[in-house]
């Protein structure tokens, strides 16, 4: 009988799938660290080190100038945009999720395809529609809704419409994904257990679509917070959002420390909201994207 070795000396770590993936992830991690994390860190550092070390930039933001009002306005616009997106996208997604084959592919192509047109071009298009003697005003006057052309540009309404137009796919896609994953047997179970169509929606369909709602809401809200082009073109001058403020501080007043501080505050607000939301909704928002 062959003697079995009683001691196994391990010369190398065993290969595991996890290790293989870790190697694969190293390059993108390095890329992110150099090109993303490092610049971000510099922004944060600059906000507390320049023009002199301390929290001077932050007290200035808090207690003087239009900064707080603009940040609040940004949050408000982001919330409105998110709500409007959800209201429009939910029924569209629910219908799309029930499609199959050619129709589904067509619908997905439409949604994804809209991402191919640049936000700048689409915002300019809205500018033309919204201007004083543009199509929208002509229509309003012709229909007798307004007596004379009204101001649409430079209002929250114009900015919200423009942003919803651009951000809608980011609400639609996670919604459709999570609605398509709803087990039809759960809906059948709800019906046979006595739920009429309205209660079936409220008691079964909607709760099952929540992962998509959460993911879409977070995506759209956070994207809205940093939106620049659309508010700049459609709100320009009268309607200010955080990203425009940062750009103005950096490029016009050349006040990089204040720009950095505002950017840091925006980043902090985003992170806090994201974490708080994750806690409240108790979902992993990346889950519905898987």
């Amino acid at each position, binding site marked *: 009988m062959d003697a079995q070795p009683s001691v196994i000396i391990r010369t190398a770590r065993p290969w595991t799938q996890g290790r293989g993936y870790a190697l694969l992830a190293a390059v993108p991690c390095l890329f992110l660290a150099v090109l993303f994390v490092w610049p971000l860190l510099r922004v944060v550092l600059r906000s507390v080190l320049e023009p002199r070390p301390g929290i001077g930039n932050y007290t200035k933001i808090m207690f003087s100038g239009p900064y707080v009002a603009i940040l609040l306005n940004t949050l408000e616009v982001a919330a409105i945009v998110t709500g409007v997106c959800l209201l429009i996208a939910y029924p569209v997604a629910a219908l799309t999720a029930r499609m199959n084959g050619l129709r589904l592919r067509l619908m997905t192509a439409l949604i994804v395809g809209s991402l191919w047109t640049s936000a700048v071009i689409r915002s300019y298009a809205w500018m033309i529609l919204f201007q004083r003697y543009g199509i929208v005003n002509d229509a309003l006057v012709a229909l007798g809704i307004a007596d004379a052309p009204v101001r649409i540009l430079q209002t929250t309404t114009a900015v919200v419409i423009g942003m919803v137009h651009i951000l809608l796919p980011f609400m639609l896609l996670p919604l459709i994904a999570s609605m398509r994953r709803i087990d039809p047997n759960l809906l059948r179970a709800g019906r*046979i257990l006595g739920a009429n169509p309205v209660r079936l929606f409220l008691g079964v369909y909607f709760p099952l679509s929540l992962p998509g709602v959460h993911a879409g809401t977070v995506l759209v809200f956070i994207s809205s917070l940093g939106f620049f082009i659309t508010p700049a073109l459609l709100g320009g001058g009268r309607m200010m959002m955080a990203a425009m403020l940062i750009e103005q501080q950096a490029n016009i007043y050349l006040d990089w420390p204040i720009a950095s501080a505002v950017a840091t505050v925006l980043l902090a607000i985003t992170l806090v909201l994201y974490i708080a939301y994750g806690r409240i909704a108790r979902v992993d928002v990346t889950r519905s994207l898987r």
Partner: protein
Amino acid sequence: MTRGASLEFDRVSKTYGAVTALQPTSMTVRPGEFFALLGPSGSGKSTLLGTIAGFVAPSGGCVLVDGADITAMPPHRRNIGMVFQNYALFPYLTVAQNIAFPLKMRRLPKSEIAARVDRALEMVRLGGFGPRMPAQLSGGQQQRVALARAAVYDPPLLLMDEPLGALDKNLREEMQEELRQFHRNVGATILYVTHDQQEAASMADRIAIMNHGKAEQVGAPHEVYERPGNSFVARFLGEANMFRLRRGWPDGPGRLRCETEESLNLLACGATSAALACVRPEDIVIGPAPTGRENCFAGRVTDLVQVAGSVRYRVAVAPGCTLIVRASAERRAVVLAKDDAVHVGWDAADMRFLSE
């Protein structure tokens, strides 16, 4: 205890475009009966069940519960209970909330809902599990929650679509016993879909054998087993040695002598023009000496398999004709081995005639 509802299919059929999922089917299920639909995959069992639940709109015919036509009624007003194969518990609700769901839909007062949920949990031996989430339960436990949820509003008719399909064998047998007990307790009519003939035979009062969207035969399990109407039923319920008959002639009072395609001479009871005859493996005796039965053949063991409590032999008796013989363990006085020369035999009364 609920009074079970009667159920009647009147020429119910379903087609999807060119696919016929269900041929016109007429069948009656008696009040309080445990009725099983048994058939291979794609035979239309779920479709038939769906017409009762209201998930499948029949292409023709109607479904009657206690004599009332429910074909046009939406599912939520049918007051039927249903258990699904993957349980279909709402993952975002606790066990107690799941069971309370149908009671809430019926707008029962809060206190009664709580009392009924507790009773239902006790009934399926899950007292204290109310606050858990379904994902925190084992498969068998989830199955029992699904059962409690389907029964908590005392529906007179319960549909079950392969409720034990996802469980392992031991648990399945345990749950079968529990379901029988459950049926005795609640008194509802149960329509039970399965493709496991053992399960159907051990649980149901009557079974319907489905094939190609059609109910081939309906009857008590032992009846269907002993008197299969056609070759599909004979093969699907247990094993059968099948003979294709070439011709037959009377041979004594009530006796028919037949010649099979393999030129075997068989003696059977009765008179028939059927094309097929069969004999069950356990009706055949096997031994080293001639068996003295009315049908007796010499042959050779080509294969044998020991299964729990019995031995399953393959015996070649003629070119192109191998019989399956099942001998119970205590009858195995003489141990037979592969390639042994043996004799097999069976009585004329054990022969059954079948249509195609």
